[in-house]
């Protein structure tokens, strides 16, 4: 039976990171989940809003939550780590601070209940994909990978309450289940330079360059990410990274949703890997032999 769940793609996923949305939709379809967009959603305000105008940085995500509430969505999945962070932080602050909630409700003209379950992409995978992946997987993802979590998926831990703050494991676990060999490395939650991509490309070159070089030096064949800002800094900005590091860096960067799609045997068009700047020179050759026990278990569901 098809499950329905609210979906907030966010602006990047409609533009420079559209392949992330394409791969998430492909993934959801493969597991019979229908993603229903939050009606008439707006931008979450991202870093710019909370840097320049605190109350605006509450109001923009609050309107999104109000739209989801109006559409009676109890759960929304937010694949962009930055949007996920803003929506979760704002709902948390509004829930605990009555004065602030009243003010923001006044600005947006709604009564927020602040009880929407906001899932990041890894939580979505854990909830809707992980248990069934073995029965649908076509190819082993038998590669060495570096799982890179970045900042906004795991910090601040007190509020997000997701995974471990210094050495998160959830993406590593997902990749292991596909047959990959995730490396141990120290840059899992180092910052890529985030929103400075345009205004201080030099800083992004140094920060992201260190991350990509470390993964490549440790023998990883792909970096796995869950954030469009991390992806564009590590992938689209690769020339700036190479300039900062003084060497050629060829390791591709995949969204975790794309990695699963590839293991499911989805086409380049469905995964969107043809849109990357750094060519994804990974082909999965070894077919999965599904044990009968797993097949029987899935049929019961």
């Amino acid at each position, binding site marked *: 039976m098809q499950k329905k769940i609210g979906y907030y793609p966010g602006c990047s996923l409609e533009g420079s990171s559209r392949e992330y949305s394409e791969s998430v939709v492909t993934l959801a379809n493969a597991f019979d989940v229908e993603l229903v967009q939050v009606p008439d959603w707006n931008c979450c305000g991202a870093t*710019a809003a909370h840097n320049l105008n605190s109350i605006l940085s509450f109001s923009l995500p609050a309107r999104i939550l109000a739209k989801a509430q109006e559409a009676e969505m109890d759960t929304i999945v937010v694949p962009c780590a930055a949007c996920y962070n803003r929506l979760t932080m704002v709902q948390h602050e509004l829930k605990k601070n009555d004065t602030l909630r009243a003010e923001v409700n006044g600005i947006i003209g709604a009564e927020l209940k602040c009880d929407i379950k906001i899932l990041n992409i890894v939580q979505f995978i854990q909830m809707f994909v992980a248990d069934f992946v073995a029965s649908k997987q076509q190819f082993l993802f038998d590669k060495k990978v570096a799982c890179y979590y970045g900042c906004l998926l795991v*910090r601040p831990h007190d509020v997000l309450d997701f995974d471990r703050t210094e050495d998160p494991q959830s993406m590593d676990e997902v990749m292991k289940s596909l047959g990959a060999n995730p490396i141990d490395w120290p840059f899992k939650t180092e910052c890529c330079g985030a929103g400075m991509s345009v205004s*201080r490309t030099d800083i992004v070159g140094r920060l992201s360059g260190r991350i990509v070089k470390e993964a490549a030096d440790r023998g990883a064949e792909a970096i796995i990410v869950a954030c469009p800002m991390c992806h564009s800094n590590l992938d689209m900005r690769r020339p700036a990274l190479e300039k900062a590091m003084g060497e050629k860096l060829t390791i591709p960067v995949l969204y975790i949703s794309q990695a699963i799609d590839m293991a499911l045997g989805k086409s380049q068009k469905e995964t969107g890997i043809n849109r990357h700047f750094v060519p994804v020179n990974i082909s999965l050759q070894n077919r999965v032999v599904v044990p009968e026990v797993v097949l029987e278990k899935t049929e019961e569901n």
Partner: protein
Amino acid sequence: MSAHIENNSLSAKLQHATEVKSAKCYQCGKCSAGCPVSNEMEYPPSVAMRLLQTEDPENDKKLLKSQTIWLCVSCEMCLSRCPMEIDIPKAMDFMRQKSLAEGLSHPKSKNIISFHKAFLDSIKFTGRLHEISLVADYKLRSWHLGQDVGMVPSMLSRGKLPILPEMIKGRKQVAEFFKKTKKT
């Protein structure tokens, strides 16, 4: 939030507005060690906390005029490692807004500020971020007209640059948010 501000220092104003208490900092330096941009800053996070603690108007001004507050990438590493759980990212947001309001922002931080402003401009008109408008607006603000032009053809061929913005139905409402939250 306490209704009463103890004195006129930046740290008192910070505490009044955000409940962040710089006084709790005992200078262990974990924030500065973990900060990915501390080597670019004139005052790494722990030094910024120390300057706040002095409650000296000169030091307050140093902070508001610093590049530090604009170089902070809001990665939250400092907060996640602080043994005293001081919300330094929130303090940085507060100081940035104060710096802009008082016209003290560092000239070398102009590009970073221009980018944030261009980002918000784009949302104000359409409700969503439109990357071409954002970059065009940024270029006009920063005069970096030629920057990243080389990336345009390859972004277009990959379908990563929609030419036209998505205009949401509620864009007027979103524009209203900007008016209602404008600092006086």
